[in-house]
């Protein structure tokens, strides 16, 4: 499971970096989105990967990490998703404004690169 997740994060991050280096604004947005997926999965994975152990206390089970998963990375990732979503939306607004003002979707506004 660790290998699969690591591969997924790696593929997402690599595609994200490649897209960010492209000259079109839409590609940059997609790149940033993919990178933030990668980062969110990465944060999630720092709480160690386990199956069938919810982070909610149950009666009869001692409250140690052997019986539960770490709830903190999950809450961190939730906040990071919300913030990432909001900032991407902001970026989209600026992208549209740039498209409207320059008439092209090039990141520097070059008319025909």
């Amino acid at each position, binding site marked *: 499971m660790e290998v699969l997740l690591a591969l997924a994060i790696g593929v997402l991050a690599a595609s994200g970096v490649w897209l*960010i280096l492209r000259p079109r*604004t839409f590609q*940059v947005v997609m790149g*940033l989105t993919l*990178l*933030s997926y990668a*980062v969110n999965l*990465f*944060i999630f994975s*720092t709480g160690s990967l386990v199956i069938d152990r919810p982070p909610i206390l149950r009666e009869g089970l001692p409250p140690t990490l052997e019986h539960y998963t770490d709830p*903190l*990375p999950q809450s*961190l990732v939730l*906040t*990071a998703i919300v*913030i*990432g979503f*909001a*900032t*991407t939306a*902001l*970026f989209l607004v*600026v*992208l549209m*404004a*740039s498209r409207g*003002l*320059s008439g092209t979707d090039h*990141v*520097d*506004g070059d008319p025909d690169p």
Partner: protein
Amino acid sequence: MNDPVHSLALMPIVLPLVSAAILLAIGDKRRWLRSLVNILATLAGLAIAVLLLRAVDEGRIIVYLASNWAAPFGIVLVVDRLSALMLLMVGLLAAGAAVYAEAGWARAGAYFHPLFQIHLLGLNGAFLTGDLFNLFVFFEVLLAASYGLQLHGSGWTRVRSGMHYLAANLLASLMFLVGLAILYGIVGTLNMADLAQKLAAVPEHDRGLLHVGTAILAIAFLVKAAIWPLNAWLVPAYAAAAAPVAALFVLMTKMGVYALVRLWTLIYSAEAGVSAYFGSGVLVAGGLVTLAFGAFGLLASIRLERIAAASILVSSGTLLAALGLDSVALGGAALYYLASATLAGGALFLLVELAKRTSIEGGAQPALVEDVVDEDDNLDDQQLPLVGRAVPVPVAMLGLAFIACALLVAGLPPLWGFLAKLALMRAAVDAAAGVPIAAWSLVVLLLLSSLFATATLVRAGIRHFWSKGGRIAPRIKAAESIAVVFLLLACVLLTVFAEPALRYADRTAASLQAPQAYVDAVLGSRARLGQIEDLPAVAP
């Protein structure tokens, strides 16, 4: 927790939040009310910062436990000398920018005032928080507001540089998250004081990962602090932003430096064992290169707003190099310089717009000139006498303010900038015994940057004030001159009271070298026990 000062520590966050909400509710018809609320809230923030500074000056550290949760579990707000100093800088600069904005920029687009207050909320929160993830949240709050502010007034140059600025900072935020996640994975806590304490217990085989994590985290801060080569976004974005916004943005680079110094001195202090002072070489080298880059940028800039932006790079580089060298005297001088560079940089950004008005004939009124021309007089290009001409008041005021600003930025006597640079150089020479190359490069580059700043500002001054011969008097509104004079007056006051200010900066640097007091204060604060009331019986 019964001490009212503890509640005061929360006010720099609550006050802008509440005022932003109020400002949103005030309609377009009552513009004067919005302006009034904005200025009053900013001034109240300044007053709170002064109160907090006085409270921590005796050496105490104020810790506010949010929702009464004890330290490593809940989020803490901490006010120590460094935080209080930064809060004061926010208060001073924001007051200047808020007053200046009322001359026109506040009406150039929608929602200027709420964004302004939210930006202050993010800045204050980032300076106060003692929790790494909370720091990320406040970073994002202030960045989100800054994206809006940077685009304020719209136009292609703003949108274009704003897009680059946004992309760079979004990437930096992702780096921040990665670094933070690695740190949490290794140490298992995000409270900065707790991190500092648990770091010694990190096993040997995790050290490498720990260094990688903090390095990634540091990159996020270094992007904000505009270290070379991560600063390509800064000059266009700052030069394009509206004047009061650019002045406010001066604080953002200082916040990057603050976050870096706060975390670095806490985590990699002398007590950190094998990891002590990890990365100081990179900081010093990066700072020196940034300083050199900024200095040459100053010389290469023709437009006044680019000169101002390059001076921000110079101050960032100086701060990083000086703080990275890690001696108490140098740290104290650097913090003193930080205060001077922040206020002078802000004032310069405000002046830029006013000085440019001397070149625009349409926005100006011709000065009154006696029309009698003698044969013997020296005549200028338009056959008007050069001698005996009265300089219009706005030009005189602008010229004086510009001279003061230039002296501050270039670090020439008699103003504050000179004292700060002198203190820096003296400390650097003292530190040269340990790290000769770095310390001497710092001295040389500081002198060089002063020379370049003088040259470029003199050139700009001649172009904007002298070559026009004072013929065109720019229209300057009262709010604009009040704001500039206020900031410059603060600089003059701090020149007069240099000794206590420098002493405060030295004590701050000394407390940064001994982070144990900070750790003890945070982890030692106990949650307040309240009365446990009987819960009402739940009806079946």
